[in-house]
C-alpha cells in the first residue's frame, strides 16, 4: 500500500500546485479585462501561458530554441507576454492530466499524438487548429493529431525508423546491404555463422519489437494494413497480418535477434550496437545524433554506421519508401483560453520558426519541410531528410494508434510472439478481440 499512498500524496500535492497555478491564471486574466476596459483599443496587453517540457538542465538546446522563439514573438507583438512554465517529461504528463481533469489547461501547451489526445478532444478542451494545418507540414504528420477530420495539435518533431548497420562489420563478413527479406535472412545467416549477433533489439518494453512487426505487415500487406486493422476497416486476422507474425517468429527462430532480447531494455540493446557487438539496429531517427555528432561515441565508430530502408518482401504489396514512425510532441491551444486568437498566432509562429531552427541547433527533425540545400548538416541527416521528401507513407507507431488497453495487449502479444508462447493465429486473434472490445 505504500506506493499507493505515495501516489495519492503526490497527486494531492500536484493538485495543490495546480490550484495555485489556476489562481494565478484568474488574477492575470481579470487584470487584462480591466486594462482592456480602460483602453478600449485592440492593443490590449495579453498574457499567454505556455507550458512546455524541455527544462534547461536536461534539454538545453531545445530550451534555448524555445526561449529564442518566445523572445522573437514578444518583440514582434509588443502587447503580448508569454509566461512559460517548464516541467520535466513525467511531471509534465501528470500535471497536464490534473489540469485537464479540472478543465484548467494553459493557453498553449505540449501534447502527444494518437490516443493521447482523445480524452482532451472528447472533453472539448483542445481548440480546433485545422486552419493552421497548412502545407508547411510533411504530409501525414498532422494526422496523428486529427480527430474526425479536424486537427487539434501541430507536431514539432518527426521520427521515421531506418535500420542502422555497422558498415565495417558488413565489410568484414562480406555482407551486402539487404533490399529484400530473403537477402536480410541471408545476411543474418552469414553473421550467425561467424558468431556475430546480427540484430540487437531491446524488447523488454516491446514497442521496439512492435516496430519490426509493423514493418513486416507494411511490406507484406501494403502501407495501410496496420492502420486499417486498428481502425476496424479490415480484420486483424487477415492473411497479411498473420503472415507478418509468422515471418517475425521465423526471424526469432533463426537467431536473428540478440540472445535474451525480451529481458533487455532499449538502452542496453543500443549499448550492444555501440560496442560493435551487433551488426544491425532498427530504431527511430531520434538516435541520429548518436551516429553523427555525439562525442561520447568514438569517431571511428560513428564513421562506420550507415542506414538502409527496411527491406521489401517478395510478392508483398509494400513499398520501400513507406515508413514506420511518428511525430513526437506537438502544440495545442486550450479551447477555453481567454486569449485564443493570440495563442493560435503564437503556435503558428512557433511551429514555423521551430522548423527553421531545430534541425541545426538541436538535431531534431521537425515535422515541417526542411530545405536541405541551405543547411550545414551531417550527411546522414541530409540523406534522411531527402528520404522524407520521397516518403510514400508514414504509419504511426501501433501502440500510439491504439487505445491504452489495446496497446497493452499488443505489447504483451509482441513479447509472447518472441517467446514462442503464441502462434501467429493466436497473436492475430488476441489483437482482433482487444481492438473490437472498445
Amino acid at each position, binding site marked *: *500500500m505504500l506506493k499507493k499512498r505515495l501516489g495519492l500524496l503526490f497527486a494531492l500535492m500536484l493538485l495543490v500546485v495546480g490550484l495555485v497555478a489556476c489562481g494565478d491564471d484568474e488574477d492575470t486574466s481579470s487584470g487584462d479585462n480591466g486594462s482592456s476596459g480602460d483602453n478600449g483599443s485592440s492593443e490590449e496587453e495579453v498574457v499567454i501561458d505556455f507550458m512546455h517540457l524541455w527544462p534547461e538542465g536536461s534539454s538545453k538546446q531545445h530550451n534555448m530554441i524555445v526561449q529564442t522563439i518566445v523572445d522573437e514573438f514578444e518583440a514582434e507583438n509588443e502587447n503580448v507576454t508569454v509566461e512559460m512554465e517548464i516541467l520535466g517529461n513525467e511531471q509534465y504528463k501528470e500535471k497536464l492530466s490534473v489540469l485537464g481533469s479540472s478543465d484548467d489547461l494553459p493557453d498553449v501547451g505540449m501534447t502527444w499524438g494518437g490516443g493521447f489526445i482523445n480524452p482532451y478532444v472528447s472533453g472539448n478542451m483542445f481548440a480546433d487548429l485545422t486552419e493552421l494545418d497548412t502545407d508547411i507540414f510533411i504530409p501525414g504528420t498532422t494526422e496523428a493529431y486529427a480527430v474526425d477530420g479536424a486537427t487539434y495539435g501541430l507536431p514539432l518533431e518527426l521520427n521515421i525508423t531506418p535500420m542502422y548497420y555497422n558498415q565495417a562489420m558488413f565489410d568484414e563478413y562480406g555482407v551486402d546491404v539487404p533490399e529484400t527479406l530473403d537477402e536480410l535472412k541471408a545476411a543474418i545467416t552469414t553473421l550467425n555463422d561467424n558468431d556475430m549477433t546480427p540484430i540487437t533489439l531491446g524488447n523488454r518494453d516491446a514497442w521496439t519489437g512492435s516496430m519490426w512487426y509493423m514493418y513486416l505487415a507494411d511490406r507484406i500487406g501494403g502501407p495501410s494494413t496496420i492502420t486499417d486493422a486498428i481502425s476496424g476497416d479490415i480484420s486483424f486476422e487477415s492473411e497479411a497480418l498473420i503472415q507478418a507474425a509468422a515471418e517475425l517468429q521465423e526471424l526469432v527462430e533463426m537467431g536473428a535477434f540478440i*540472445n535474451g532480447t*525480451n529481458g533487455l531494455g532499449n538502452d542496453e540493446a543500443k549499448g550492444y550496437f555501440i560496442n560493435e557487438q551487433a551488426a544491425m539496429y532498427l530504431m527511430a531517427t531520434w538516435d541520429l545524433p548518436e551516429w553523427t555528432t555525439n562525442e561520447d561515441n568514438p569517431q571511428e565508430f560513428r564513421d562506420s554506421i550507415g542506414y538502409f530502408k527496411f527491406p521489401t518482401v517478395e510478392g508483398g504489396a509494400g513499398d520501400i519508401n513507406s515508413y514506420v514512425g511518428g511525430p513526437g510532441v506537438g502544440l495545442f491551444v486550450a479551447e477555453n483560453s481567454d486569449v485564443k486568437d493570440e495563442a493560435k498566432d503564437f503556435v503558428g509562429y512557433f511551429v514555423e520558426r521551430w522548423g527553421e531552427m531545430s534541425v541545426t541547433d538541436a538535431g531534431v527533425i521537425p515535422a515541417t519541410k526542411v530545405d536541405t540545400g541551405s543547411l550545414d548538416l551531417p550527411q546522414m541527416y541530409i540523406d534522411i531528410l531527402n528520404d522524407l521528401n520521397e516518403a510514400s507513407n508514414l504509419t504511426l507507431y501501433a501502440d500510439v494508434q491504439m487505445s491504452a488497453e489495446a496497446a497493452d495487449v499488443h505489447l504483451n502479444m509482441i513479447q509472447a510472439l518472441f*517467446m514462442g508462447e503464441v502462434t501467429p493465429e493466436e497473436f492475430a486473434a488476441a489483437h482482433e478481440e482487444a481492438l473490437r472490445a472498445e
Partner: protein
Amino acid sequence: MSNKKIIALYVLPSLLLLAGLVYIPIFLTGYYGLMEWNGVGAMEFIGLDNYMNLLQDPKFWFSARNSFFLALFSTLSLILYLAVSLILAGKIKGKELLRKIYLIPMLLSSVAIAQLWIKIYDPNNGMLNSLLQTLGVDSPPAWLAQRETVLVAIFIAIIWQYAGFYIIIYSAALKGIPASLVEAAEIDGATPIQIAYKIKVPLISGVIKTTIVLAIVGSLKYFDLIYVMTGGGPNGASEVIASYMYNQAFGIKNFGYGSAIGFALLILALITTWGIQKLTASKNDSIQF
C-alpha cells in the same frame, strides 16, 4: 485540563497527519474502486463491477500467485538470514567488517540495486553468464527474458536487497541474550550448534515471528525491483499484485480498476497478517505493532 485531554491534545497532530495521509486515502482507494475512471475527466459510478471483474481476472490471480511465491521465498530466506546472524554473533574474525558488508544493500536505493542486477543478469555480457561460460556451461539462460527463470532471478536479487535489514534485526536481538546463559551452557559442554539451536533461537522467537510478518506483508506489496528490472514482463511472467495495479492505473489509465486491485491487496495483506498472528500466537507472547 485533565490528563486524558492533554494526552489527546498531544496525540492530535500525528493523528490528523496519519488520517490525512493514510486512512483517508485508503478509504478513497476503496471508493475509486467503485468507479470507471481514466484519470482525466469525470468518474462514472459502476458499483461493484471492478471488484467482480477482479475475481474473474486470470492476470490478477496469476500476479497474486507470484506474490505468494515471493512471500514463501522471503519467509524461507529468513532461515538464511538467521544463520548468518548466528554466525556473526559467534567468535569469528572480522565479524564487524562482515556485518558492515551485509548492510551495504540497505544503503542503496532500489533503482540502483535493480540496475546492478540487470547488469549481472545481462544475457551476453553479464557477470553471471560470463562466469557460467568459463565454468563450461554452453548456453546459459537469458535470466530476465525467459518465463522459467525470471521469477527466481528477481527473487534472488530481492533476498540480497533485504539481507542487511533482517540481519540487523536478528543481530540486535541476539545481543540481548545474557552472556551468562551462553557461558553456563558452554561449561555444561554444549556445542555451538546446540547453543544456537536450543538457547539462542528460542530466546528470540518473538522477534522471529515479527520478521515473518514483515517478510510476508512486505512481499505481498512488493514492487520496486520488479518494476525496474522487467516491468512485470516478459508477457506478464513476473507480474506481482503491486506491479499489476501500477500497470492498470498508470500504464493503461484504468484508475478505477487499479484502485480496486489496490484495495484487494490491502484486504489480502490484512487477512494474511491476522492469519499469521493466529498461527504463531502462544500464551506467553503476542506480537505488538
